[in-house]
């Protein structure tokens, strides 16, 4: 076995906003230029730090939305984040509403080696997203698509209303083009026209029907607000999934 690499300690560096686009009326994707960025694993995140003129600073974590920097355009130094604006947030409204192309923030990453999908994992995958928890799971879906991985993926994506769903068109395209990807939406407040179920929260029936059976021993990833993550993880365990195959990431609901 190879000796452990010591990549060195990680600290803050400058990131410049190169491009931005809205995914929903309240979620904005930021494409940041980070010189020297050496890539990342799907599921990892970065910390973003803002400093006000009087020295006051605040930082938050944001998941990386894109697959690792193996994309064909050779944009090795680009980091893509999708930021959900929280109304009483301290950092997110700045990133969605104020930060302009050409301006800089400080960034530390990539970090987070546990909530990660590696193509070397042979099992089928269940992805359960609550709101903005879809971001790291989308990075996993994009990575799978980029390398045309064979492991089948099932995404269960809980949103309040259809308008709150990020990446909707891309997910539709990928379901069509990336063989072996299925997506099921759960709408908690308002459903689309023609939807046969009433609005509801994620439940046993949904995960049982649209996830993988426990005896397929899938790798499960759950991401979203803390109550969502607890509910979904508890359901997976109740359905017989091995807790060791369930990885969770809780997103703060506030700030």
């Amino acid at each position, binding site marked *: *076995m*190879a*000796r*452990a*690499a*010591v*990549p*060195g*300690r*990680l*600290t803050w560096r400058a990131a410049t906003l190169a491009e931005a686009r809205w995914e929903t009326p309240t979620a904005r994707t930021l494409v940041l230029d980070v010189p020297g960025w050496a890539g990342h694993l799907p599921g990892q*995140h*970065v*910390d973003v730090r803002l400093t006000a003129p009087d020295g006051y600073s605040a930082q938050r*974590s944001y998941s990386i939305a894109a697959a690792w920097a193996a994309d064909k355009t050779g944009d090795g130094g680009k980091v893509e984040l999708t930021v959900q604006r929280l109304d009483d947030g301290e950092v997110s409204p700045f990133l969605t509403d104020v930060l302009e192309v050409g301006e800089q923030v400080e960034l*530390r*990453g990539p*970090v*987070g*080696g*546990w*909530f990660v999908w590696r193509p070397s994992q042979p099992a089928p995958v269940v992805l359960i997203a609550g709101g903005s928890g879809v971001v790291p799971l989308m990075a996993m879906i994009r990575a799978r698509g980029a390398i045309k991985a064979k492991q089948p993926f099932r995404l269960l994506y809980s949103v309040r209303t259809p308008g709150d769903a990020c990446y909707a068109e891309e997910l539709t395209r990928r379901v069509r083009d990336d063989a072996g990807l299925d997506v099921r939406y759960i709408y908690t407040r308002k459903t689309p026209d023609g939807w046969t179920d009433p609005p509801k929260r994620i439940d046993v029936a949904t995960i049982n029907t649209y996830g993988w059976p426990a005896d397929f021993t899938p790798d499960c990833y759950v991401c979203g*607000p*803390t109550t969502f993550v607890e509910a979904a993880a508890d359901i997976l365990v109740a359905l017989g999934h091995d807790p060791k195959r369930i*990885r*969770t*990431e*809780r*997103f*703060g*609901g*506030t700030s």
Partner: protein
Amino acid sequence: MMELDGNAMAGELREIFAVDVTAARYTCAGCGHADAVATLLLWGRDMGRVGRCPHCRDVVLRVVHAPDRIFLDLRGTVRLELPLAGS
């Protein structure tokens, strides 16, 4: 309410350690529960990070940032098991 888990500590732990510690396994000194540091329930934020065992809620680790030092208190874990790169 506790909103975050040990995943959110990955960045600041990466400033102390040269490897990712969220994938390390702790063993809770209180109840013996063992799992990834990523699964600790996180409190504190501005004062420091307090990582609690999801099983018994005892404090497993604390991280406090002073301007020129970082304090890492690990007395709530009897052991940390860190995976090596390439494994």
